[in-house]
């Protein structure tokens, strides 16, 4: 089968999938498809979109491909949806970060770091499907364990937990916290500056932790 045709089929499948679709699944459907070929084709699609200046690109999130609009159009698309974006307070983000990096983690462990009882925030994060209960720890009291849910990867555009930004080294931090080194105001960095965008073209080579979506 011609490569152009294959590329178009992959494009159609990604567009028509109700949720991020894994490379392995695409390879199943694509005639003469191999996972490796699918990854190549997706990269070609993204290259073409970029060359043509399209307003969207293919992302790889939570182990699957999804077409997403480029961030520069956010202000317009927001007006279309009228659904308030997922707003997360600083407390919610801190709790989420703790769950993400320390998972599976207990409520007491989160409280230990933040100095504040995370109960209500955890419940809220579970309601929003960002955090899930991942069983109990086998110690007296059998405390519940919290972990990030699949939705967390999708919302934050991560392909897997390994794509989380690395935690800062404590020594390095200590040097910075010391007085004058850090500005008081804590300027919020521009999203572009911080985010390692994960459109699939850039990370498609990364080994996928699991081929299946579920």
């Amino acid at each position, binding site marked *: 089968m011609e490569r152009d045709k294959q590329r178009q089929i992959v494009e159609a499948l990604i567009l028509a999938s109700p949720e991020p679709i894994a490379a392995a699944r695409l390879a199943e459907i694509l005639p003469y498809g191999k996972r490796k070929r699918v990854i190549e084709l997706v990269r070609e699609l993204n290259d073409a979109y970029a060359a043509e200046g399209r307003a969207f690109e293919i992302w790889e999130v939570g182990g699957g491909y999804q077409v997403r609009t480029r961030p520069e159009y956010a202000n317009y698309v927001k007006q279309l949806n009228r659904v308030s974006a997922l707003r997360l307070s600083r407390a919610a983000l801190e709790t989420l970060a703790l769950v993400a990096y320390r998972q599976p983690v207990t409520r007491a462990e989160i409280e230990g770091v933040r100095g504040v009882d995370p109960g209500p925030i955890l419940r809220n994060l579970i309601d929003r499907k960002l955090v899930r209960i991942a069983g109990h720890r086998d110690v007296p009291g059998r405390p519940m364990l919290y972990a990030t849910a699949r939705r967390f990867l999708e919302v934050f*555009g991560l392909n897997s937990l390994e794509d989380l930004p690395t935690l800062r080294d404590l020594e390095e931090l200590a040097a910075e916290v*010391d*007085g004058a080194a850090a500005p008081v105001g804590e300027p919020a960095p521009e999203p572009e500056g911080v985010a390692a965008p994960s459109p699939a073209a850039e990370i498609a080579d990364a080994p996928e932790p699991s081929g299946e979506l579920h």
Partner: protein
Amino acid sequence: MESRAAAPESGVVIEGPGDEAGYAVKLQAFEGPLDLLLHLIRLNEVDIHDIPIARIAEQYLEYLDLLRDLNIDVASEYLLMAATLAWIKSRMLLPPDGTEEGAEEGPDPRAELVARLLEYQRFREAAHELDGVWRLDRDVFAAQCPKPEAVPDAEREIEVGLFELVEALRSVLAHAPATGAAHELAVETITVRERMLAVMEALEQAPSLEFLQIFEPPDGRPPHRSMIVATFLAVLELVRLAAIRVYQGLDAAGVPTGPIRLRAGADVEDANWRERISELM
């Protein structure tokens, strides 16, 4: 709810008593005692490994006083930290020698606090970074097809053969109470006609019924054998009249699966079944 102390959203500025010559209190919202402490350390431009506990503790308490003046409830975790600071301060005042251990110098009483501050700082930063990531439905939007609606069983049905129907009847009979001959009482006669009407009535209430369901008498007792037989004959009769259809779902491989169900026949709405059944039977 999230931080009971300085509860307003971060960045909120609470103006102090405005009449006092430009006096305004800038009150930042803190996410807990550690957050507040880190702020004070920065403000004082001091070394985190050598925190002047007395000064920081004093400022910390001033802040709590300020909250009280503003009638904001100070959450218990802030008070706990105040106590911890006071404890560290007292330990620092003790002479390094002459203590019970007798060793040269015990560990720095501030060490544990410093470790907690750094650990918290680490996650505060991680949270900040997470917030900067392009987020779905805030910065980027997915082009998504809606999930196709689940196909109801009825759309993939097959008609049920007599054999399956008899099989189903057997399982109904198996669950019916055995009728001991000696105790047989002619309680009431159940007619096929009655059962036909009952099935049709039930199908007016629900789009479809499970086969086993129609054998249950309305009073919830286990069905009597005569009831089961009459009902089964009623079902056969209704099928013959095309008043109902009996079907079963198919699984993905095309194998009949799931319970056998009944549904009203195609033109049952406009027909007056009550009359027609009465005529026939």
